[in-house]
């Protein structure tokens, strides 16, 4: 299921969103992720937004395929020279295809009930030993933020369990907090796991 309202908000504020500087912890996480993925490997940026991270990955020598469900973001990513396509989490049907999947604050827009299925699709899409990165907001339940974007919130324990069930191992987690597009300072978690 794709949330039209969330996509509408991102479309309306795509330019503004592209100018938000990622938190230091996210930049560190990207560097760590790129250090863990096979050099020059193929990365799927699942929910690429305007393509800032995908561009960094390409500059670092990785081959990048990018998905986003917001057309304005796909355009912005293509304009950055990123192979981005309009696609939802349910369009991830590849098997043993990627060395890494970067899902940075994207899967939190999927309903909690769909999360195990999406993690399963990520596990299937990764090559054995491939690395999954997840950035999510910490909390409980589901709801809309002050802008109207749909969010699912998770606890670290829930995430560790869900990753384990999906077949991932070597799970690491960093938690921090930073302001987002809505201006709230929310606690978040950055995780990596191995397929």
């Amino acid at each position, binding site marked *: 299921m794709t949330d039209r309202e969330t996509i509408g908000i991102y479309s309306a504020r*795509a*330019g503004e969103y*592209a100018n938000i500087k990622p938190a230091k912890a996210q930049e560190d996480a990207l560097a760590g992720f790129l250090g863990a993925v096979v050099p*020059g490997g193929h990365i799927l940026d699942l929910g690429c937004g*305007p393509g800032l991270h995908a561009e960094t990955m*390409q500059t670092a*020598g*990785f*081959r990048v*395929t990018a998905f986003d469900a917001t057309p*304005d973001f*796909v*355009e*912005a990513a*293509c*304009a*950055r*020279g*990123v*192979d*981005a*396509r*309009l696609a939802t989490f349910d369009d991830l049907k590849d098997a043993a295809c990627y060395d890494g999947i970067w899902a940075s604050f994207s899967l939190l827009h999927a309903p909690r009930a769909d999360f195990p299925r999406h993690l399963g699709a990520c596990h299937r899409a990764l090559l054995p030993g491939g690395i999954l990165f997840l950035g999510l907001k910490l909390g409980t339940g589901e709801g809309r933020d002050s802008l109207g974007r749909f969010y699912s919130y998770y606890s670290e324990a829930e995430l560790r369990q869900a990753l384990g069930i999906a077949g991932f191992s070597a799970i690491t987690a960093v938690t921090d907090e930073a302001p987002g597009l809505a201006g709230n300072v929310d606690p978040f978690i950055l995780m990596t796991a191995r397929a």
Partner: protein
Amino acid sequence: MPDLFAYTDGACSGNPGPGGWGALLIAREGDTVVKTRELQGGEADTTNNRMELLAAIAALESLTRPSALTIVTDSAYVKNGVTTWIHSWKRNNWRTAAKKPVKNVDLWQRIDAAQARHDVTWEWVKGHAGHPENERADELARAGMAPYKPSKAKG
């Protein structure tokens, strides 16, 4: 009139690094292949997406007469760029809706000019998924890249 197809692919080692492009042109009467032509080339320092663009450009520029053809690419970047985003980029003087410059603008402008002479249908296929023509275009791209790959270490 036979139907004309161009299967295009790019390859890159390093990204940026040495890269190549390949295009397999096929004229078909029904299911019968009446003519094929293969093109390839490469550069010393390029990216995968530039080679994907150049493969399609080379196919278009190789046609001396205005033609109707279908270009089959495994690059969503090329297919979506040329069928969707290029129109607004052009209108915005090669800037995005958010007023940012468009990367690889030299090749987007060249593909825009190259396709203007022809009647092009763009098709996307999944790469490395057992399409024989796409596999052949991939081989051509790799062959195009070969002369630009650093020679094996000399002791």
